[in-house]
């Protein structure tokens, strides 16, 4: 009888301890990686390589996502707002939705799938093939070499990608607005810039930087702590993408509260 009562509690306790251990582990990992930002040597070449991988090679997928999102947003807004004769609000809805929410969140989710998975797989493979241990024996701190440049690159690259996504998303909305829904181009653009405020763009860019940090952190952490060969690396990759996607959505809410809640 006792075990029927205690077993679920014990399982709950173990799960709680595991969560605490993981959160603590990720926090210490992040602090260690950040501490190398101010401690030489610095690996500029690795930073640049990671930056190009994130910013340049993610550009097509982020651009396509942004353009189609802007287009769909314009179409759906029109369908809804036409019921209330509020079609003139479409441009403002598109630009505010994109800059504040959809631009950063969708770009981050796309980059998470591309880069988070890639970081986890690459570093995870290095872990299970002793390459990380080899770094230690070659007078190189693996955190400084593998993690810090990627974190920094992602924090800088994501806002730039989101800036491009914002522009392309608005352009997608403008295309649908002018060529399909019959808006006058100048009026649509006037409406767009009239409602847009600096805070809208800045909040989106800050979110992007935070999301970039989360993506790189989860990707590198999952890879760095992976074990068990190919299966372990596969699991690390999946965990990196799932965890960073959930964190992106959760942090989006937290940051939105921080920026816009009254």
């Amino acid at each position, binding site marked *: 009888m006792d075990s029927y009562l205690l077993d679920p509690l014990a399982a709950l306790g173990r799960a709680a301890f595991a969560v605490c251990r993981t959160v603590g582990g990720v926090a210490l990992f992040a602090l260690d990686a950040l501490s190398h930002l101010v401690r030489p*040597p610095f690996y500029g070449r690795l930073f640049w390589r990671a930056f190009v991988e994130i910013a340049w090679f993610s550009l097509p997928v982020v651009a396509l996502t942004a353009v189609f999102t802007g287009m769909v947003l314009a179409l759906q807004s029109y369908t809804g707002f036409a019921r209330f004769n509020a079609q003139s609000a479409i441009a403002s809805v598109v630009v505010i939705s994109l800059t504040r929410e959809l631009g950063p969140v969708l770009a981050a989710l796309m980059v998470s799938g591309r880069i988070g998975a890639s970081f986890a797989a*690459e570093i995870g493979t*290095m872990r299970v*093939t*002793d*390459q990380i*241990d*080899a770094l*230690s*024996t*070659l*007078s*190189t701190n693996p955190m400084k070499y593998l993690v810090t440049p990627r974190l920094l690159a992602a924090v800088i690259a994501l806002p730039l990608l989101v800036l491009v996504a914002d522009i392309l998303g608005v352009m997608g909305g403008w295309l649908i607005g002018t060529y399909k829904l019959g808006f006058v181009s100048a009026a649509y653009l006037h409406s767009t810039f009239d409602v847009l405020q600096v805070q809208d763009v800045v909040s989106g860019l800050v979110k992007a930087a935070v999301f970039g940090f989360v993506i790189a952190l989860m990707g590198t952490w999952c890879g760095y702590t992976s074990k068990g060969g190919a299966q372990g690396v596969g699991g690390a990759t999946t965990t990196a993408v799932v965890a960073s996607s959930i964190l992106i959505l959760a942090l989006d809410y937290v940051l939105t509260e921080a920026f816009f809640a009254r």
Partner: protein
Amino acid sequence: MRDMADPATRPAARPAVGAVPKIRMRGVRKAFGAKQVLDGVDLDVAAGHSMVVLGGSGSGKSVTIKCILGMIEPDAGLIEIDGKDVLRMSRGEREALGDRIGMLFQNGALFDSLPVWENVCFKLLAQNRISRTQARDKAAEVLAQVGLDGSVGDLSPAELSGGMQKRVALARAIAAQPDIIFFDEPTTGLDPIMGAVIDGLIVDCVKRLGATAISITHDMASARRIGDDAAMLYRGKIVWTGPAGTLGHTGNAMVDQFANGEREGPIRMELRR
């Protein structure tokens, strides 16, 4: 089970009286969960000697090396290099010590994102001891020492055969001219001839550098070729040390059983039936 007190054992690896061994381990213990992997390892490696550590799979050979390298923190015990306790060294001292150590990993552990020349000179580049231009020439020079053409330097590790990868890994281990080198199963996965070639290269490199070497292996032919001394690790303890040349007829039942690959003897494999 015989132990170090057994008259059949000969502590040949012990340095001369009064001399400080290059590497000294005393009572090193390490457990992973309930499994006691190292249970009081005592080992001396004399300067300039090549010590081979033997033992079955899972006997703790790799953990022993990783403890010396600082990759794993032992639960208890003493590890000294040149008389200095490595477990109590500051970060700076540890880094300085690491600069003097080379390691050949079992599977090579070459960085597949870098070309061979950058792998070979990785440590020298990391320490800013040479420029990238000089590194290419240096890599060609070191590759020649392990019997590889300089043109291999531009290839990716994935383009190399297993034997070539081992040679490149050896070149990487010796490029910074370390005075202590660790070899983790250097001939695993190689055919006997290539294994002998790698062993020959290891002996040449260690002698040329005047380095102290610790190798772990269960390849007896390799152990006899590359070792001056040998030690047998069994159930977390060093149960025998002696000249590597005597392996197979040491008089220690456990070592002889292991070296000759006999089913019957004091060593019982833990098999599930």
